[in-house]
């Protein structure tokens, strides 16, 4: 029994290893798909931008200022800061902007269910446009970002769009530098490869857009979802809508600067993702109308946060089987050796290295060995999250609690940042 379990674990690790290498090689040598990036002239539709804000006094001014500068027809742009039960100066700051710019229509939410999905669900009642863009309050969109996120909606099959997240506070701590590398791997390689291969790019909940009619068709935001983004990706997929990724729709964000904040963040992601897995893995595998590529990728994407505990389980089983004298022979032994002597596999690190190269980062690639530390923390965190979920499912628990990620920014940074970024003189055409 233990041997069978061990074999299954090793097989899973091998599959995910191949998956990582496949994505990375595709990004390095494969055909790249950016089907919507060239659309710079169009009869742009009216859109609404929702800014999810809960106690965001340190950051909300930055995003509002940035959105006032974007290159999008002003008469087709409505900005709704969704101030969700803030107890700090968030409301005051938003209202100061509203006084000067009447097309900003604030939604000050004082009650109701907590959580981003619940707040967005309430805010949607005020949305009259077919295209809705969503940003978290700590993001700083660039001038052309809005058009880049809207362009894919000219494709009638697109239900949601995801842009690329780029950390702004990179140089602050060792953690922020590691997260910068990790984000590069996730977006520059993972998401874009899935876009290239017609798989399932993931809607990420911020720097993102959704088609209102598609959202209405699937029943709106799921306020019971811990990861409303993953939940939405799969509900759209199952309803015949595509989520697409725009690698060049880049937006700055603030990443956690303290390890406890990071641990809480990744545990929330893991729980949300696992929750989506239990709901959608079978429907995704069975759904008619999805290509086989989408089914396979959809299933494996749902399982990414299970791989942490699977790896820990595999290591434990290897020790137990070794001391009990079990016969692990042939190819399995080679696979096991490969898997376990390289901390699961090096594929994820290869992915990060390739992403740094694609981004043109020369020196930050030196930090790659330290990602092992971040990997270990993530491994333990997602395993702990999985354990808590399993425990709660057997013994029951309190309601799901949504934890907002703590902000480190203490004052607006937009001017300082813009002053540092040189304008583009020439680039490849």
């Amino acid at each position, binding site marked *: 029994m233990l041997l069978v379990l061990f074999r299954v674990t090793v097989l899973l690790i091998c599959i995910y290893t191949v998956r990582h290498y496949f994505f990375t090689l595709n990004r390095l040598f494969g055909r790249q798909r950016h089907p919507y990036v060239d659309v*710079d002239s169009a009869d742009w539709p009216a859109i609404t931008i929702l800014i999810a804000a809960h106690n965001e006094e340190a950051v909300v001014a930055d995003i509002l200022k940035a959105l006032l500068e974007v*290159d999008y027809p002003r008469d087709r742009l409505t900005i709704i800061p969704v101030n969700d039960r803030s107890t700090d100066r968030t409301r005051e700051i938003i209202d100061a902007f509203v006084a000067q710019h009447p097309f900003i229509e604030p939604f000050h939410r004082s009650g109701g269910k907590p959580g981003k999905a619940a707040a967005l669900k309430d805010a949607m009642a005020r949305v009259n446009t077919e295209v809705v863009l969503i940003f978290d309050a700590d993001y700083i969109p660039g001038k052309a970002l809005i058009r880049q996120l809207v362009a894919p909606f000219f494709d*009638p099959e697109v239900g949601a769009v995801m842009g690329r997240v780029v950390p702004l506070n990179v140089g602050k701590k060792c953690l922020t530098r590691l997260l910068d590398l990790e984000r590069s791997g996730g977006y520059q390689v993972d998401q874009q490869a899935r876009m290239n291969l017609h798989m399932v790019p993931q809607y990420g909940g911020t720097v993102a857009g959704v088609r209102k009619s598609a959202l209405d068709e699937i029943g709106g935001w799921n306020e019971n979802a811990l990861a409303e983004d993953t939940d939405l990706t799969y509900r759209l997929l199952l309803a015949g809508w595509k989520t697409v990724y725009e690698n060049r729709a*880049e937006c700055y964000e603030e990443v956690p600067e303290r390890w406890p904040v990071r641990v809480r963040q990744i545990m929330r992601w893991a729980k949300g993702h696992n929750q989506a897995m239990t709901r959608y893995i079978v429907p995704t595998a069975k759904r008619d109308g999805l290509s086989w590529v989408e089914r396979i990728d959809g299933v494996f994407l749902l399982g990414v946060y299970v791989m942490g505990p699977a790896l820990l389980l595999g290591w434990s089983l290897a020790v137990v089987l070794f001391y009990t004298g079990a016969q692990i022979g042939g190819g399995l032994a080679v696979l096991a050796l490969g898997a376990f002597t390289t901390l699961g596999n090096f594929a994820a690190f290869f992915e990060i290295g390739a992403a740094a190269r694609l981004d043109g980062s020369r020196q930050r690639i030196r*930090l790659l060995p330290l990602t092992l530390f971040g990997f270990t923390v993530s491994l333990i965190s997602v395993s702990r999250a999985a354990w808590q979920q399993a425990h709660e499912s057997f013994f029951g628990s309190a309601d799901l609690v949504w934890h907002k990620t703590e902000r480190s920014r203490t004052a607006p940074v937009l001017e300082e940042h813009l002053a540092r970024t040189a304008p*583009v*003189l020439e680039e490849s*055409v």
Partner: protein
Amino acid sequence: MSSWAPLALTTVTAALLAVPVAPALYELWKREDAAPLPTSRHDGRIANFADVFRSRLEPLRPRLERCRAQLEISRARVDGIEVLLVGCNAEDFDFDPSLVQGIAAVMFSRAALIPAGRVVDADIYADAALELEEGAALRAAVGRSDITLGKDSGVLRWLHADGGIYLRRGSSAYGRLSAGQSIRMEPGCGFQRMHAPSILTVDAGQDGDCVSVPSTAHVCETSEDAQHLPADRGEVFASSRPRLRVKGNFVLAPGETLNANVITTGELQFGAGARLFGSVKSYRGAELEEGSCVHGSIVCGGTLRLGPRSFVTGPIMAEGDVLVARGCRVGEPDALTTISSSGTQIAPGCQLHGTVWARVRGSVED
């Protein structure tokens, strides 16, 4: 065994373990690459290079005016680049190598002329019209009036005119090509990315000011049937429009009208005179036969063929090529749009409004 042996062993082991992380620790300490990754701040306009070039030269305008008044040629330096200021008439300046040696940009205060067969490395700024004679080539240019590319001439990086641009037979504009008013192209011209409120392909020798492109408006909406058309026909993003998903090929019969967004996993074909109010996506190729209309966007996984006199209002995004037949119209003067494809071939007699981006190569049919 010496008592130092365990210490030595420990030290060597620690050193060996530290070797792989030494560069990482160095980078953490020195922070040589700790800035946020640069994200694009510009707005994606095709004319951006021209705008940046123009703004870099702006401080030299008073000197250029003096050169113009005195009909003289002088050198200046701005923003780290060497600039030649030409105040004399075009015929008095022949790009003498001794004058343009080491020059990165040339500013003309009057109409400028690149002589036949001459290749110019410097970027050109022209305060008036600019003309490239037959076989001439330059890297980049911006003109405050019209620009004409003579037969078989070429531009390698970018070209912008505040007025119009005329590309005569066989000329090529690699990179970016943009005009404030219009771009007119004769057969055999090549391009990659271009933008103008009006882009016309004309027959060779046809006067650019009296281009005749057949109207397609009557094909798409006649007064007698306007009342039967959907009320939201002009709205690409109408949320009430039904979505039609087709497994396999989709054919809209000649003369038929459909109000829906259509997604097909196979080929797409619109018969002559067919009309679609909505957007359409084909996983493979698509063909619009003569006189058909799409009041929306077209997304195509293969090659898209627009038949004669067909009309599309919204963006066209093709992963393969786009072949545009004579008399087609894409976009409208007051509603610019985009054609994006791997390669684009346009027949003479077409009218496009907005951006045409051929990632590999675009051409006007010869």
